[in-house]
Each structure stands twice: as C-alpha cells, then as structure tokens.
C-alpha cells in the first residue's frame, strides 16, 4: 500500500512537471469543452435563406408566401423567375432552398382541381435539406387542411366531420429526452466525452514507455518492490483521479454554464465514467507496455481513438454500418460507454438497462490490464535477472531475512 502511494505521488509530480502531460490532462479538457460548448451555443437553426418563385401572383399565392415567411426557420431573400435562377442562387450559397408556386394555382384550387407546389432543396447540406423540408411541408399541409376544411364546409358537411375528413389520422408525437431537437444538447455531450476518452488514451500510452525512454524504469520498479501489480496500480491511480476531476468539471461547470440538461442520477453516471476512465487507461497502458517507443505508441493511439465518434453510432446508427465496421466499433470502449451514457444521461434508465454496457466496458478493463500485467511481468523478470535491479532486489530480500 505504501509502495502504491509512493508511486502515485511520484506520478502526480511527473504530471505536474511534464509539459505535455500537464497540457493534455489539465489544460486541453477545459479548452476543448469550452470550444465545443461555444460551437453549438446558438442552439437552433433559424432564418435559412430561401427564394420564392411565384408564377401565379394571386391573393392565394401571396397568402401562401406569407405563411412560409412566418416560419421562423426560413427567411425569403430572393424572388427568382426560373428554375435556372434558383440553381444559380444556390450555387453561390445565397439560398439553400426555394418554393415554386405554379401558374393558375388559385384558379385550379377554386375550380376543385389539384395544384402542385414544388420544393427545391439543397441537399448537399443534409441539415438545411431536412430542416427546409420540415418547414415547407408543415406550411403546405396546414394550407391543404384549411382548403379541405373550407370545401367540406361549403358542401354542407358538419364542421366536425369536415375536420375529420381533412385530417382522418391525428398523429400525436411525443418526442422524449430531447423534445426540442436541441443540437447543443444532442451533440455537445457526445463531443466532450469523445474528446475526453481520446485525451485519456493519448496520455496513457506514454505512462510506462516514457519511463524506459527516460531511463527511470528501474527506479520505478525498485519503488514497487518488484511488484507488477503495485506498479500498475500506482501508475493508474493519479490518472484515474484526474479523469474524475475532468468529469466533475464537465458536468459541474460546462453543463451548468451552457444550460445543458442532465436527467441522470449521480451514482450510475459516475460508475459509468469511472469504468470509461479505467478502460481507456487499461488500453493505453497495454499499448505503452508493448510499444517501447512513445511516438509509435502515440501514433497507434491516434489511429485507434480518432474514429471512435463516428464508429460509436452517435451520428450514424451502428445497425446501418457494414458488419466489419460494427465489429470494429465493438472493439472500442467508447461504443458501450455511449450506449450507457444515453441511457443514463438522457433517459435516466435503471441499472438493469445499463448492465450490458457496463459488462462490455468491464472487458475493456480486464483484458488490457491482464495483457499489460503479463507483458510487464515478463519484462520485469528480464530486468530483474540482470544488473542493478537484481542487486537491490537481493538487498531487499537480505534485509527481510535479517529482520526475520
């Protein structure tokens, strides 16, 4: 226990004195958290520039245009006179969509004939594309329902029946967990956590090999009394504590300042984060033990961690990916963490629901630590079998024998 504590203190001193450790563990997290929170601070998408091509120029077409204009999502900035004009404006990024109201729009509707309104959407940006469709469709369907209602009433149908004919299936949508489709509440927690796991792994890959590079490993082994487990525990503990501090910073400061709601209970949330921290440290330490060159280990860590966000199924669901990508996703601790995080953070689901993800994360702690232990044990035996360390090991044994 004393040896673990000594190594822990030593590691804290290393973190405080090494510039790259200090920057990545203590400076980068708040900077990156702040940056992500700022990026999506505006929250909603409003006033998307669109054009209206009105070929009818009647009272009804103008009414329709006023309805589009009243949607907070769009703002009408141009009045083109052809489809070509619309394409040219979109090409210059002056508009992201357009509506075309055809000739005889009012006349056709008055004479009980149908009329077609065309939506032009720039789908090269999916966000604009889907938001505009929603805004356009909402207005047009409301107008449709209004026209139907008036027509049915005009033919002597009871108002209630007319309403039921205009809208036979009343669809009541209950959007749970992020009802306003707030982009900040959706994306920022994911971005913060993915950045967090990346920082943990990028530093963890340097924990052991830096000792070899700096020729301080023998001293470390001496402090651990030759015990691999003591060494691993002493090295892990400070990083675990700093990880937890960053979690508290994330929720206690940034969520509060940027009004990101948390539906979670503290205990399952902290358990989940603790397991993520340990899993990242375990993987990093395993790499650090195997690859003695720090730069090479960092390169590998970068390749391994940087795809975590897209592969985890955060923005694009896992089930839509090919099987090999799904398999790769399952090899990263961020994937089960994210599943659990959604359940805890937004859905406030119970332990039962969280358990499979915790078990999955548990494997990421158990397997890499076991590998790291085995490899380090072999390397320690080699170190102990020659030179300096062997002599102090013998010295320790002699002391013990003398005491006995």
């Amino acid at each position: 226990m004393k040896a673990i504590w000594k190594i822990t203190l030593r590691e804290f001193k290393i973190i405080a004195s090494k510039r790259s450790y200090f920057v990545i563990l203590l400076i980068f997290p708040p900077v990156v958290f702040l940056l992500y929170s700022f990026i999506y601070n505006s929250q909603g998408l409003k006033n998307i520039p669109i054009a209206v091509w009105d070929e009818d120029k009647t009272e009804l077409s103008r009414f329709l245009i006023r309805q589009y204009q009243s949607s907070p999502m769009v703002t009408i900035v141009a009045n083109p006179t052809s489809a070509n004009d619309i394409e040219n404006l979109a090409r210059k990024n002056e508009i992201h969509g357009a509506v075309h109201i055809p000739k005889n729009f009012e006349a056709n509707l008055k004479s009980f004939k149908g009329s077609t309104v065309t939506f032009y959407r720039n789908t090269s940006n999916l966000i604009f594309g889907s938001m505009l469709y929603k805004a356009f469709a909402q207005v047009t369907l409301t107008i449709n329902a209004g026209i139907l209602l008036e027509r049915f009433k005009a033919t002597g149908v009871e108002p209630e029946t007319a309403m039921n004919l205009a809208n036979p299936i009343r669809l009541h949508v209950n959007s749970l967990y992020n009802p306003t489709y707030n982009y900040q509440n959706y994306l920022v927690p994911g971005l913060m956590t993915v950045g967090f796991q990346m920082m943990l792994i990028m530093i963890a890959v340097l924990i052991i090999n830096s000792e070899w590079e700096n020729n301080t490993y023998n001293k470390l082994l001496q402090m651990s009394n030759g015990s691999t487990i003591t060494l691993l525990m002493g090295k892990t503990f400070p990083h675990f504590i700093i990880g937890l501090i960053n979690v508290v910073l994330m929720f206690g400061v940034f969520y509060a300042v940027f009004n990101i709601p948390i539906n979670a209970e503290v205990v399952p949330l902290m358990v989940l984060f603790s397991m993520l921290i340990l899993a990242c440290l375990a993987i990093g330490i395993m790499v650090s033990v195997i690859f003695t060159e720090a730069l090479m280990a960092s390169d590998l860590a970068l390749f391994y961690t940087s795809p975590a966000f897209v592969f985890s199924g955060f923005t694009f669901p896992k089930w839509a990916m090919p099987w090999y990508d799904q398999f790769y996703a399952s090899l990263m601790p961020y994937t089960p963490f994210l599943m659990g995080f959604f359940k805890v953070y937004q859905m406030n689901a119970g332990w039962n629901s969280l358990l499979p993800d915790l078990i999955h994360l548990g494997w990421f702690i158990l397997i890499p630590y076991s590998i790291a232990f085995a490899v380090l044990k072999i390397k320690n035996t080699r170190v102990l079998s020659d030179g300096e360390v062997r002599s102090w090991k013998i010295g320790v044994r002699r002391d013990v024998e003398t005491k006995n």
Partner: protein
Amino acid sequence: MLKSILIKLTLREASRVAKDHTLILSLLFAPIFYAFFYGSIYINKTEKEVSIIIVDNDHSDASRTFIRMIDESQIVEVAIVTEDMNEAKLQFLHTKVQGIVHIPKNFEADLKGIKGTDVKMFLNTSRFLPSNDINQTVHEIALIIGAGVRLKYHQMHGSNSTQSLERAMPVSIDDHTLFVLPSTYGGFLLPGLLLLILQQTFLIGMTESIAREREQKTVRNWLKQSGGSIWKSIWGKSLFFLILYAAYSLFFHVVNYHVLDLPINGSIGLLVVLLTVFFLVLAMFGTFFGTLFSKEIWALQFFAFSSYPIFLASGYSWPLFTLNPVIQAFAFILPTTPVLEAYIGVVYKNASIIDIQYNLAHLLLLGFCYGGLAWWRMKKLSTLEISAQSNEV
C-alpha cells in the same frame, strides 16, 4: 539552380520519411486506411431498418394495412407488434427499438365512420437521425391513408376517380433536389470527410517532419541544403508533400469516389485549381505550426486533438452563420472553412470559378498570411541555429 535545390530538398524529405516509421504511418498508411475505413461506414449511404414497436389495440384490416405500410417503407422496420404498452416501454427503455406507435381501439371503425382517430407516437430523440426518419415515415403514411379516406368519401359522393384524387389532396408537393446529389447522410458527409482526411494527415505529417528537424537538430542541415534561403527550404520540404498529396487527391477522386458511388458534377480543371491552392496554403500553415513544436510527439498530439474542432467550426456540419462570433472568427483563420464550401460547390453543385471566387480569395489571403508567419518562424529558427553554431565554435 533553384530546380536542383528543390529536387535535392524533396529527395532529402523522401529519404527522411522513408527512415521514420511514424512518418510512414502518418503519411503513407493513414490517408488510405482512413479513406476506406471511414468511407465504408457510409457505404450504404442511408440508414435502414430503424426498428420500432407497434402497439396494436385494434387488430383490424386497417391497422394491419397501416403496420404493413410502415414495415414496407425504405427506412423503418416494424420489429415487434404487441398489444401490451408496458412491453413496448421496456423495449424502448432498453433501446431495442427507437420508437413506439400506438394504434387505438376502433381505429378502423373511426376511420370508416369519419370520426377521426388518434394515433400516438413516442420517439427517442436522444439521437436525431433515427427519430427524424421514423417521424417522417409515419407522418407520410398517415397522410396517404388520410388521402385514401377522402378519396373514398368523394367517390361515394359521385366524383369520378380523377376528380376524387384532386379533391383528396388539393395542394400536392413535388420535392425536388437541387443539383444531381445523393440526398443521404453518407452523400452529405463523405466529401467533407475525405477532404478532412487529406488535410489532417498532411498537417500531421508536415508538422511532425519539421518538429523532428528541431528535435534531431537537423535544421542547420536543412537550411544548408537550400543554400541558406528560407523560401527555398520551405518550398523544398513542401514540394514532397505537394507531390504526395496530389497523388492521394487523384486516388481519392478516382477510386474512393467510384467505390462510394459519389458524383463529381463540376469541372475537373477547377477542382485541380482549388486543391492546388488548398495544398499550397496547407504547406504554409503546416510550416508555421511545425516550427512551433520542438518535439515530434507534441505536433502529433496537437493535430490529433484539432481534427474534430476544426471540422465542427468549419460550418460543414452546422451552418457557420448560426455559430458563436468567436467560433466564426476561429473558423475564418482556418483554410478548412473556405475550401470545404468551395469543394462542395465544385464537386456537387457544378460551381464555376465565379461562384467560388470569394472562397479562393479567402484561401489566398490565408496563404499569404501563413506564408509570412512561416517565413518569420523559419528566419527565427535559422538565427537560433547560427547563434548555436557560433556558441559551439
């Protein structure tokens, strides 16, 4: 003279890369691996089989038709049909399904009796894409069934088929996609992603290489081989990266675009011009940042953490004009911002040079600024090297 110095420095760089396995990993393995690996996620382009559970309390022909129509849709899959709302809630909480649709008792009877019926839908909006897809699909199907109810009503009241159809849906919608574009998530993300892979691996490789010069104290040798000229030393190193990334660009646009079935609607000539200007700017950007790091590993760490913030701030995923002014200012100084807009313009929208003139001007401005900064940093480094040399003497 200039030509021979540039060739000499390019060969020197190639030899340094060949001897450094981390640079080989960053420059030769990473771009190809990332391009195929990331690209493969979106190979299906759009999500499919978004699972929902349906609570059917009616068990009628109409409810079964409603369920069948949802299940036959391109994206949504009806995973379970049940009568028990509690079971549905459990499946929903365990995230086995992304939504619940509840069909009430008397669904068919109420539709036939023109009483209207209330269908409830519960969506897990913690993720946008699946919830949006379910919402849109179920809405569209409800509208189709609603139009069918009106169609029957009009037919029963003496209208012929055409009149009934027109009267059932007075204003119909024609949804038209601008340009010839894949309106899918993969289609939207992949071009930006491929360009970002090129950018980040270029920057990691170049900054690592320059930081390594400092770490291994070979700056003097680098400058000596350029005849003491700062610009020649910068261009000599950059030329290697420019040649390598010209090859990658060709490969990505021929092979990856083909494999991922992405269109190139614009002029190839303009694309070449845009990418050339972009890589020249990146060379200046990379030189400037590379000289700031005295250790290779620091350069790697810095650019490893910069990928996500750079991409997100560039306005590709969320429109730039809605972002915080501080972030907009940050985005302005990144080459990623103008190049992504121009790149999508050329590749997808068949934009002309006039359409992307401001993006090109923005890129050139950044090129001059970072070029100046790169020169200043290199000058400083050379001064340090000379003073180090005189101290040694």
